[in-house]
């Protein structure tokens, strides 16, 4: 047996899991449930959001959360695939970590362009 590089995605998974455990419920509520309930008058308007996300600190925090969420989900889905009986682990890893990379890059580009 030999030492494995799985430490790297695991740390991203664990960090992501921890951050999400604190922030995810309220985020989903804020961006996905509250608007439908009409709880916002102005908060999600284009101007407000542009100004909010335009703040470099907000960009940084959002980038952190989104990146960790991508990698957390990718790693856990890899385990899920195994648990559902899919044994092509390498292919699964390439696809999922590839998607996480795409997500990370897209988030970075989007944030920079706002």
């Amino acid at each position: 047996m030999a030492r494995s590089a799985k430490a790297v995605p695991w740390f991203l998974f664990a960090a992501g899991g921890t951050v999400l455990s604190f922030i995810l419920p309220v985020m989903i509520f804020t961006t996905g449930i509250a608007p439908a309930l009409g709880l916002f008058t102005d908060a999600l308007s284009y101007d407000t959001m542009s100004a909010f996300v335009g703040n470099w600190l907000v960009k940084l925090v959002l980038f952190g959360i989104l990146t960790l969420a991508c990698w957390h989900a990718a790693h856990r889905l890899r385990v899920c695939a195994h648990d559902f009986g899919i044994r092509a682990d390498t292919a699964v890893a390439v696809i999922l970590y590839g998607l996480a990379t795409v997500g990370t890059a897209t988030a970075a580009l989007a944030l920079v362009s706002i």
Partner: protein
Amino acid sequence: MSERTIELEVLRYRPEQDQEPFFQTYKVPCEEEWVVLDALNYVKEEMDRTLSYRWSCHMFVCGSCGMMIDGEPKLACKAFLKDYPTGKIRVEPLSNFPIERDLVVVLDDFVEKLESVKPYIIPKEERTVEQGEYLQTPAQLKAFKQYTLCINCLCCYAVCPQYGLDESFVGPAALALAHRYNMDSRDLGRAARDDVVAAAEGIWHCSFVGACSQVCPKDVDPAGAIQQAKFAHGIDYLTSFLPGGKR
């Protein structure tokens, strides 16, 4: 004397005559205070000499009598009949292990794994007997004591789906034992154990189902040990790429 009759459904498998296992039911007159092991002993002595199972100490410490009792891995000497009010108890050999015969399972794989994690002190500094003991404070002892309590009953392997699905996994008890030595203030062997413990088949194969810790009759918490080990070995891995790190 308060007696009650228990229906003991035992999974039998006699390799020399059976193609596959089958359930055999014994009606066993039992004392109220008995454990499942007592009922098995009654069967062995009074009803059926051909029933095979392992046991010895009858006090939760030798680890011989781990078996599936109503689907849960338990020590037969710690499974009290009073906790099974229906009077029907199903006894099977530990899951995830090949059945040698009846309730006896093949343990070779586990024993190899236990040996593979270098479960002995790899000392920080060699010490002679004349130099006396290593000093170890009660707090330093506490740091690893819980992980010394494993009796190798294998209940954790029997409930670990990752081991069941893929027996290359080093598994809960062996990894917890490696952690026990890594956490010992006298030991400096974590790097030496890295090859096996931090392999893909080692701690990284664990997906933290946590079932092992739920069934452990000695509260060893192998699942916790493995997560802590992931952190420690993970840091080792990352820092090994820093300048001056040992790869």
